[in-house]
């Protein structure tokens, strides 16, 4: 989702001033470089030139909201998480500025600000650690294992190797296989409950009024007795599941009378 957090819209020709265009381009380049709203906030906080522990969250919030506003006026399409963060920061700002309401539920503005400051400090610390890690004396770059493979070969043993990825990919391959079908049973004449459920979920949206369950049987399943039996059973089970989930209501006036269902609107 956040692979490319922000994408520039097609350029609109309305900015003719070279300066504004240049500013816009710079901003686009900058925005593309960020890995999410936290990264952006961290970068903005650097402009305050203070220890992260002393960063002014109110000022930072202001900077972020201005940044987002600018991006919007330049019609830069912002990814949803940037907007969620903007909304959260606007909320935080109001909490910080208004006198605390004792009846209000949830954390105080100060607590929320403290948490944000903590998140920024933690991310900065992890970046720092990552850099330290990569700067260590690494194997095959600074330190080397023995180069030659063993020369004293007498007895030879074959081992088989497979990595964890091989194993998981093999499993995924089987379970996502296109043509996967249990071979033990011929399913030409069987409608599964899942299949019926998938169909009905799409159809009940239109069933505002009581409708006979039998009218939900798929085309081509009403005539052949074997298929009709399977489809009826599957549809019935699916209807019960939908009722359990609160999606439909079911009624039957008497034994062996038609079973009818309709959409529940209160959900």
């Amino acid at each position, binding site marked *: *989702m*956040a*692979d490319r*957090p922000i994408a520039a819209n097609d350029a609109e020709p309305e900015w003719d001033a070279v300066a504004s265009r240049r500013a816009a381009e710079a901003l686009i380049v900058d925005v593309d470089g960020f*890995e*999410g*709203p*936290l*990264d952006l906030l961290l970068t903005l906080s650097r402009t305050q030139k203070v220890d992260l522990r002393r960063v002014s969250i109110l000022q930072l919030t202001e900077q972020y909201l201005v940044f987002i506003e600018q991006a919007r006026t330049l019609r830069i399409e912002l990814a949803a*998480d940037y907007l969620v963060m903007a909304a*959260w920061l606007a909320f935080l700002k109001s909490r910080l500025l208004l006198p605390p309401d004792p009846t209000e539920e*949830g*954390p105080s503005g*100060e*607590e*929320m600000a*403290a*948490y944000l*400051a*903590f*998140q920024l*400090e*933690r*991310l900065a*610390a*992890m*970046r*720092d*650690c*990552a850099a*330290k*890690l*990569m700067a*260590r*004396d*690494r*194997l*095959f*770059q*600074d*330190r*080397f*294992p*023995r*180069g030659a*493979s*063993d020369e*004293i070969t007498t007895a030879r043993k074959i081992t088989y190797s497979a*990595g*964890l*990825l091989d194993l998981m990919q093999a499993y995924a391959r089987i379970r996502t296989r296109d043509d996967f079908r249990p071979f033990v049973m011929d399913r030409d004449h069987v409608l599964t409950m899942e299949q019926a459920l998938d169909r009905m979920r799409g159809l009940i949206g239109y069933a505002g009024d009581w409708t006979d369950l039998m009218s939900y049987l798929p085309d081509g399943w009403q005539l052949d007795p074997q298929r009709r039996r399977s489809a009826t059973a599957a549809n019935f089970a699916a209807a019960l599941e939908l009722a359990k989930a609160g999606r439909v209501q079911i009624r039957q006036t008497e034994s062996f009378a038609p079973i009818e269902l309709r959409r529940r609107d209160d959900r």
Partner: protein
Amino acid sequence: MSDAHDARGESLFRAPPLAEQERMVEAMLFASPAPMTLAEMEARMPHGSDPAEAVQLLRRRYEGRGVQVTRVGDAWAMRTAADLGFLMARETVETRKLSRAAIETLAIIAYHQPVTRAEIEEIRGVSVSRGTVDQLIELEWVRFGRRKMTPGRPVTYVVTQGFLDHFGLESARDLPGLKELREAGLLESRPPEGAEAELPRDDGTGDMFEDDAEAQLPPEDEDF
């Protein structure tokens, strides 16, 4: 070399003298491409041998040499001294360049292990993109740890012996700056001194049990 050692070693099970054990450990560590545990060494050595002591002797012997006896988690390996890396330029293995996201993710796993994907995302503030963890697992720097006993029982990630070996760490406790981070409370999921801020946390608990269900037997066949 030292008769005291010989006498002690030989009394029990007729184990070879310690000096001889040191030679054995030297040969094994030299020949083995991967780090070896004490148990693996012991299994090959004559009965009654004490590879732990032999390794310590060997390690001291190689101090300051061009080759070092290094500890890798609970195993041992011989590696060239880091200051001589320039001589081996031709042996350098060009590793795939890691993305910034992958490097950060690796650091987070190392310092916060065992850590779930949701926790990594919480710390980085973005979702972990496809291929990031995949790459770290393929490099054999990261593996799966125990599932977390929280709702959804999510899978966790931990770093491997290969990670320690690659970055020249004796154990995960030797990660640079670990102590300072812990003291600063930066390895916690909450800020220190009780600032209990309720924050929207997307910890993926929505899909409870789904994955477990996937990984287990179909119910009708289960006979626990």
